């Protein structure tokens, strides 16, 4: 175990802590994406290049897209009123029979 591992491990725990502790949800998600990238590096250090490839593509890429997309959804619906009041469900519900 070298300095690189020590630094990587501590950064990993720190980013995980920041992802959980950030007040701003956007910052938390970005920290989580960074966490995913660091995990990919850790897998390289653990001599697991297969997992590193998968983690870089999935953990950092796809999960990030999914989380940010949902974040946009949550933010957007809060925008008009600024409160989380109950909204009527639109009448277009249940129309998707084409699939």
């Amino acid at each position, binding site marked *: 175990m070298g300095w690189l591992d020590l630094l990587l491990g501590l950064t990993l725990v720190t980013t995980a802590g920041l992802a959980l502790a950030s007040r701003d949800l956007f910052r938390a998600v970005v920290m989580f994406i960074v966490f995913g990238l660091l995990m990919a590096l850790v897998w390289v250090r653990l001599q697991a290049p297969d997992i590193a490839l998968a983690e870089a*593509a*999935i953990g950092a890429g796809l999960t990030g897209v999914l989380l940010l997309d949902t974040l946009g959804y949550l933010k*957007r619906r809060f925008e008009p009123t600024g409160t989380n009041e109950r909204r009527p469900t639109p009448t277009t*519900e249940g129309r998707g029979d*084409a699939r």
Partner: protein
Amino acid sequence: MSRVIVAAIASLIITIALALAVLERPTPTLSLPNLASTAITPGEAGVLHPITAVLLEFRSIDTLLEIAVLLVAVVVALALREAQPDGADRMGLDNPLLHAVVKLLLPLMLLVAAYLLWAGSTRPGGAFQAGAVLAGCGVLLRLAGTSLHGLERPRWLQGGRVLGLLVFVSVGIPPMLAGRAFLDYPADLAGGLILLIEAALTLSIALALLSLFRLAPPQSDSPAFPDRRKRRRA
């Protein structure tokens, strides 16, 4: 406040338990890598990369169940989706730069996915990584609002989602008819069969991940949601 205390106690207990488990770890009596490599016998399996061999030869039922779990997740997401037929809803960010970059990068990404799939038999790579890259392509296409026309027909998408499981099971059953175990491929065909399964898995994993992304978005025509394309142009 009491919630924080409960959380602290619970996580402390778990951390201490795990730490004790790490400290008191038993010395292994048999070597799993050796066991796996003798069970696989590289020449016979038709794949030289140990991880691909483990995924599709030594522990192939794990992988079979994994693709089944993915399919179940997609089915549940389909059941929960908000009204939106396939193909109609796209995000369509009207950004000329994005369109140009997608046009440039897409062939390259497809090439990388194909390479990862092909490389899986001899070096790091395989169906999972290729599927993830392919799903990334789909996400990028969706963000750019590029249409694939004929390839996006609902029936094709449905077929693609189940293809991985279908191919896996149909490759696994014939050995049973010959009196061998489920998924015990004949040695001389193993290499080709594994590549076939992996290709089908790649497609299904990519489509499953992509549909889980596509099923989530809001309806573009709901009153709470102005269409993003219109909003952008305004």
